[in-house]
C-alpha cells in the first residue's frame, strides 16, 4: 500500500496544479504548477522525500514511454507537416546549437566572474 499512498500524494499535488491552471489566467500547464508545488511541499517539509520518492522515481523513469501515444498523433498531421518542414528544420538544428552555445558561454563567464570554475586556459 505504501506505493499507492505515495502515488496518491503525488496525485494530490497534481489536483492542486490543475486547480491553479484553472483559476489563474495564464496559459501555463497544470504539470508546471504541479512541479513547482511538489518542490515547495518538499522544501517546506509538508512532504518528506521518502513519502513520494519510490512512486516518483518510477513515474519519471517511464516518462519516455508515456509520450508515445501523444507522439504517434503526428500520423494525422501529414498536411500540417509539409508546411512545417522548413521551420522545424531551422528550429531544430541551428537554434539548438545557438541555445547551447549561449547558455554555456553565459554560465562559464558568470562562474569565472565569481571566481569559480576553470581558468580561461584550462
Amino acid at each position, binding site marked *: 500500500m505504501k506505493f499507492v499512498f505515495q502515488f496518491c500524494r503525488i496525485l494530490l499535488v497534481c489536483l492542486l496544479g490543475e486547480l491553479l491552471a484553472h483559476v489563474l489566467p495564464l496559459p501555463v500547464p497544470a504539470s508546471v504548477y504541479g512541479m513547482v508545488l511538489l518542490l515547495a511541499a518538499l522544501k517546506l517539509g509538508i512532504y518528506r522525500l521518502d513519502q513520494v520518492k519510490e512512486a516518483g522515481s518510477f513515474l519519471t523513469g*517511464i516518462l*519516455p514511454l508515456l509520450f508515445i*501515444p501523444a507522439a504517434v498523433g503526428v500520423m494525422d498531421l501529414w498536411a500540417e507537416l509539409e*508546411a512545417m518542414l*522548413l*521551420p522545424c528544420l531551422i528550429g*531544430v538544428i541551428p537554434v539548438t546549437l545557438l541555445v547551447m552555445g*549561449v547558455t554555456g558561454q*553565459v554560465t562559464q563567464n558568470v562562474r569565472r566572474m565569481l571566481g569559480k570554475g*576553470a581558468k580561461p586556459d584550462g
Partner: protein
Amino acid sequence: MAEFLSSSAVWGVVLTIGAFALGTLINRKTGQAWCNPLLLGSIFVILLLSLLNIPYPEYKASASPLSYLLLPATVSLAIPLYEKWELLKNNLAAILAGILAGVLTSLGSITALALLLKLDAAQAATLLPKSVTTAIGMDVAAALGGLPALAGAVIILTGITGNLTAQWLCRALKITDPTAKGVAIGSASHAIGTAKALEMGQVEGAMSSLAVALAGVITAFLTPVFASLLL
C-alpha cells in the same frame, strides 16, 4: 481485426510498451543517439497502425492509461530537482543566468523565425517550447493552441541534435567548465542531451538534469509572452 481491437481494453498499452521495448533494444545494441527508444517506438506504432488501417483516435483511446500517468510523472520531475538543490544553491547566479540566457535565445530565435517565415499562431506555438523536456513542451504547446504531437516530434529531434553535437560544440566554443557544459546541454536539449552529459562526467550529468527541470519551468512561464508577440 479492427473489430476485435475495438472490443479489447488493453491492446493500445501492450502495443506501446512492445514498441518501446523494441526501440530500447535497438538503442542498446547500436548505442546510437538517433536510435532513440521514444522516436523508434513512435515510428513502430505508426507503421503498425497504418498497416492494419487502425485510426489514430482508436489507438489513443486504448493507450489512454499511459497518457493518464503523464501528469503525475511530469510533476514528479520536482523530486530530482529537490535532491540536487544544494548543487543549485552553490552556483545559483551562474546557473540561473545561463538558463535564462538560453531560454530567451530559444524563444527569441523561434519568434524571429516565425515572423520571417510568416508562421501562424498555432505553428509558432508548436515550435516555441522545442528545447524543453517533452513533458512540459507538449503541454505548453497545447496550452497555447499549438499541435502537441508535432511539438513532441520537434522536441525529440532537438534532443537528438543536442546529444550528437554537444561534445563538438563545447570544444569549438571553448566551453571547458563542467558546470557550464552541463547547464548548456540540459537547457538546449533536455533529457536526451542529458544522456550525453552523463557520459561526459558526473558534474556535467547532474547539472544537465538540473537545467532540464529549471529551463522547463522558466520556459513555461515565458513562452506565453513571446507567443503574444506573434498574435
